[in-house]
């Protein structure tokens, strides 16, 4: 049976990552550093530790994801692999979807390792419905990666691509960041209902996944 195209791309990215572990190692250490730096800057022993833990987690994930996203397409530039992708019969959307799924898996691994550390560092115990985190965090991660992977492909041709990605990703990502932080904070504090923010994240994801899949063709063949 023929495997779908995006599955082939995903398997290839996972295999490369399994052999080098570049992205996961660098992201993990980077996220850890961000968490430690924010903790030192904000003094987490005080009573507002619970309030700042959700923003710190989201920002750490965002920064770590950006550091890895810069590499995700640079890998394809070596030996003109990107040109090979352009000539291959596989649709552009499949290449994009494979990349997003691979990055999503990497970042999810980081989050799974980071979560227990967070509980220890910030002495957390969630007061709301913890299971909702399984909905809010993946949705928020997807919102970073769908736009991040797209803009990384977009900025790959610029003179200073490492700098450009955060410059265009952060403003577009802001509403999702707001929703992600508020949803996680609501779950951790148990004071308000996170369902509104989960819906915002869901609609953000649906809208931008659609636009990205529709416009990725244009980006991949922008030179023609």
């Amino acid at each position: 049976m023929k495997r779908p195209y995006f599955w082939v791309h995903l398997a290839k990215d996972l295999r490369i990552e399994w052999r080098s572990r570049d992205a996961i190692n660098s992201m993990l250490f980077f996220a850890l550093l961000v968490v430690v730096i924010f903790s030192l800057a904000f003094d987490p022993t005080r009573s507002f530790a619970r309030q700042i833990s959700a923003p710190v987690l989201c920002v750490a994930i965002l920064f770590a994801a950006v550091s890895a996203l810069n590499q995700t397409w640079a890998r394809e530039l070596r030996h003109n692999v990107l040109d090979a992708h352009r000539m291959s019969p596989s649709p552009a959307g499949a290449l994009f979807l494979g990349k997003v799924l691979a990055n999503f898996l990497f970042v999810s691994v980081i989050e799974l390792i980071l979560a227990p550390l967070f509980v220890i560092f910030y002495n957390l115990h969630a007061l709301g419905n913890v299971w909702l985190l399984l909905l809010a965090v993946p949705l928020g991660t997807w919102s970073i990666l769908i736009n991040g992977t797209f803009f990384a492909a977009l900025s790959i041709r610029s003179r200073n691509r490492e700098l450009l990605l955060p410059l265009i990703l952060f403003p577009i990502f802001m509403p999702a960041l707001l929703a992600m932080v508020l949803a996680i904070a609501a779950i951790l504090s148990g004071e308000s209902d996170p369902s509104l923010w989960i819906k915002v994240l869901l609609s953000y994801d649906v809208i931008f996944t659609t636009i990205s899949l529709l416009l990725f063709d244009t980006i991949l063949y922008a030179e023609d």
Partner: protein
Amino acid sequence: MKVFRWLWAAATLAVLANGFRVAMYVVPADRDQGDLSRILYYHVPSWCGMAIFFALNLICSIVYLALRNRNKVIALKADALALTSAEMGVVYCLIGMTTGSIWGRAAWGIWWTWDARLTTTLVLWLIYVAYLLLRRFTSGAEMRTLAAVLAIFGYADVPIVYMSTRWWRTQHPSPVFFGGPNSGLDPSMLPALFWNMAGWIMWGILIVSLRYSAEIRAQRAQEKAAVAALEVA
């Protein structure tokens, strides 16, 4: 064309001068705010200008994407207009935020509050500055395509930003400001608003037309340089 532009510039100045006269001396001061309310006649037109030029930017970006392989001449014109309208929108946005901030300092005692509308405009401003930066960091035909794609992303983000900041602030109502300063404007004040609205939008069109012709010239110079480079090789 040149004569027309001079005439347009003269008309713009005349309308702006009359707008200033009507706003400052003719219409009555606000019952609650006094003369402070007159900044409204400069604040509101800048938002209208921003809305017009960001929408124009989206339309031109879509036109560019649709025509870039079929009709290159029109596509390049659309791209030049997309760039200049984004620049103009950013300027209007800045004017709107500045006048709003001055008003806020006098009326609420603070320069800035993280209210839904203020946050939305700030994010909007950041998105379009990022758009202008992208245009600076890349070059050639692909830059135009990438910028047009980013314009679509930016515009799609605006309603989400607005709704999310509104829900964010509705959950924790801000103590200083709820509702709007201009909920229901007295009909006697409308002439000032109309004159300034017309004047500032004419001003925007004037600047955009100047920037547009400069941009078209830059495009031509680039093309000429590219052809010359080919001939040498």
